[in-house]
C-alpha cells in the first residue's frame, strides 16, 4: 500500500533523509520511531507530496506521489505535527471546507463531516471556533480532517504529542480502530506508543533506517540488557558480591549506604530476566528490599545500542506482559515534558 524506495532528501549539503526504504502492507499500522530531528517529518512530508525527494520515490496505493500527485493525495489523509486548522472557522465549517478541497462529492459532504466528527468525538464542539479549542480537541479535529475523504492511507505525524494521558489513550484507541479500514503510518519518539499501537516499527536515526522490526522483537532487544535499580537496606554490608553471584547478573554497581538503604544497580546479561532471582538473593540474605524497579532504556540508549552493536540476536525470551499496563503513565509524562 505504501512504498518508500531509496528516498533521499537533502537540504543543501545536509541530508535529512538518506536512502530510506520501507513498505507497509494494506491494513497495517507502521510506527516511525526516532528522536527529534531524525527525519520522521521529512519522510512523512515526502510521502504526502508536500515536498519532493531529492532521489528515490514514494508510492501510495500504486500511485507515484510525484508522477500523479492528485491521485496519490486523494488516497492520503495527513495530520502534520501541528494540526492545520484555520482559527477563525468553526469545527464544522473547517471540516466542510476540507471535505470540499478533498473532492468529497457535495451530496456526501454532510454525512462525511458528521461521521468524522462522531468517530473522533468532536461533535460537542462542532460550532466552536478552531482557534479556541484545547490542544486535545485541536488534535482530534486534525484527525477528523484526515479521514473525511475515507483515504486508503493515513499519515500521522506525532498524533499524541502534547496530549494528556487520558487523551493519549483515547487517541491510540481511535488510531487502532481506524486501522481496520486504513493503512497507517504514525511517527513518534515515544517507545511504548509504538508497542501499543503498531504492528511494525521502523526506527530511523539521522535519516537512516536503523532497525525494522515488530514491537515484540524490539522489546526483546531492550530486555536483552535490562538494568534493575534496587534500594537495599543491607545493614552495613556491601551487597555487591552477593548480588554478583546471582545467575544471569552481568554487573553490579552499588552506591554508598544512606539513611534509606543503599542504591544498587544490577545489570542482567542479554535476554535474561533476573528480577525474581535478585529479589530472592536480597531477601535470603536477610536484607530489606525497599524498592525495585527496572531502569527503562531511554530512546537515546536504544539508538546508541542499535547504532553501535552489529549483531541483532536479541530474542524475546520472556514475555513482557505488564509492560502495557505500566508504560502508559510514563508515556504521559514524557509527552507532557515534550509539549
Amino acid at each position: 500500500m505504501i512504498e518508500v524506495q531509496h528516498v533521499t532528501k537533502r537540504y543543501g549539503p545536509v541530508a535529512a533523509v538518506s536512502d530510506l526504504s520501507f513498505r507497509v502492507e494494506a491494513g497495517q499500522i507502521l510506527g516511525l520511531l526516532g528522536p527529534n530531528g531524525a527525519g520522521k517529518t521529512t519522510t512523512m512530508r515526502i510521502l504526502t507530496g508536500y515536498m519532493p525527494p531529492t532521489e528515490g520515490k514514494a508510492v501510495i496505493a500504486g500511485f507515484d506521489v510525484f508522477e500523479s500527485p492528485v491521485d496519490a493525495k486523494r488516497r492520503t489523509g495527513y495530520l502534520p505535527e501541528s494540526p492545520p486548522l484555520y482559527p477563525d472557522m468553526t469545527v464544522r465549517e473547517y471540516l466542510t471546507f476540507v471535505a470540499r478541497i478533498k473532492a468529497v462529492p457535495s451530496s456526501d459532504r454532510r454525512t462525511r463531516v458528521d461521521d468524522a466528527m462522531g468517530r473522533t468525538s468532536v461533535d460537542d464542539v462542532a460550532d466552536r471556533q478552531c482557534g479556541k479549542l484545547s490542544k486535545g480537541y485541536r488534535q482530534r479535529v486534525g484527525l477528523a480532517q484526515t479521514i473525511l475523504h475515507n483515504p486508503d492511507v493515513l499519515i500521522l505525524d506525532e498524533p499524541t504529542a502534547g496530549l494528556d494521558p487520558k487523551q493519549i489513550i483515547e487517541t491510540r484507541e481511535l488510531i487502532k480502530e481506524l486501522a481496520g479500514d486504513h493503512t497507517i503510518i504514525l511517527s513518534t519518539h515515544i517507545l511504548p506508543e509504538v508497542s501499543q499501537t503498531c504492528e511494525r516499527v521502523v526506527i530511523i536515526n539521522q535519516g537512516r533506517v536503523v532497525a525494522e522490526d515488530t514491537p515484540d522483537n524490539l522489546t526483546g532487544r531492550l530486555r536483552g540488557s535490562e538494568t534493575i535499580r534496587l534500594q537495599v537496606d543491607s545493614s552495613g554490608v556491601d551487597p555487591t558480591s552477593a548480588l554478583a553471584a546471582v545467575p544471569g547478573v552481568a554487573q553490579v554497581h552499588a552506591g554508598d549506604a544512606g539513611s534509606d538503604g543503599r542504591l544498587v544497580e544490577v545489570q542482567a546479561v542479554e535476554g535474561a530476566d533476573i528480577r525474581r532471582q535478585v529479589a530472592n538473593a536480597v531477601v535470603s540474605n536477610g536484607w530489606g528490599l525497599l524498592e525495585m524497579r527496572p531502569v527503562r532504556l531511554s530512546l537515546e540508549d536504544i539508538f546508541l545500542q542499535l547504532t553501535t552493536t552489529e549483531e541483532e540476536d536479541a530474542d524475546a525470551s520472556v514475555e513482557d506482559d505488564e509492560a502495557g499496563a505500566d508504560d502508559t503513565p510514563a508515556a504521559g509524562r514524557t509527552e507532557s515534558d515534550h509539549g
Partner: protein
Amino acid sequence: MDNIFAIAQKELRSYFVSPIAYVVVGLFAVLFGYFYIASLTILVRFSAQSGMFGGPQNININEFMVRPLLSNTAIILLFFLPFLTARAYAEEKRSGTIELLLTSPLSDMQIILGKFLGVFALFLMMLSVTAIHMGILFWYGEPELGPLLSGYLGLVLMGGSFISVGLLVSSTTQNQVVAGVVTFSVLLLFWVLSWMADSAGPTTQAVLSYLSILEHFDDFSKGVVDTAHVAYYLSFIAFGLFLTAKSVDSERWRG
C-alpha cells in the same frame, strides 16, 4: 473548478471574520469620499469661474471630475491592495495550514486561482462602494457613462495586476509585514517607471513607459478602451500568477 471556488470562498470569508474587510472597505470609502468631495468642490469653483469669464457654465464633468477622481482612486488602491494580499500565502505558511493545502488533491494553480479570486472579490466589493458616489453624480449632473465605465474597467484590471504581484510576493515569505511592504515597493516602482522614461534614450523610453502600470491606465480614464492596454493588464496578471506557481513550487523543493 469547485476546488477553486472553495479556496476563493475560504479566502474571502477570512477577510470578513477578521476586522480586515471592514477596516479596509470602510477606510477606502472614507478616502474615496474625501477625494470625491474635494474634486467636486474644485469642479464647482471651476464652473463658477468659467461662467464669470464668459465661458460655458456646463463644463465637462468627466474631464474635470471623474478622470482625476479615478486617478486618485488608483493611488488609494496602490496603498490598500498590498495589505489585502499580504496574508494570502504568508499566513498559511505561518500557521502551517499550507501543509493542508499542498497535501490536498489540488494543483498549485487551483490554489493560486482560488486565492486570486478571493482577494479579487473583496476588491470588487470595495470598488462597488463608489457606485453610490457615482450615482449621486448622475442624479445631479450629466456625466457621460462610457468614459466612466472604461475608467472602472481600467481600475479593475489594474487592481487585478496589483493582486497578482501581491500573491507572488506573499508566496515568498511567511511574514505579512514583509509581504505588504515589498508588494507596495514593487508596485510603486512599476508606477513611477515612466518618470525615468523622459530622460532615457528612445528605446529605453519606449520599454519603460510600456512597463509602467500608470501609462496604461491613462487611456482608460480618458474613455478609450484599447485592446493593447487590456492585453497588457491581462498578461501582467497571468505572468504574476505564473510566477507565483513557480515560487510555490520552488518553495516546495527547498522545503
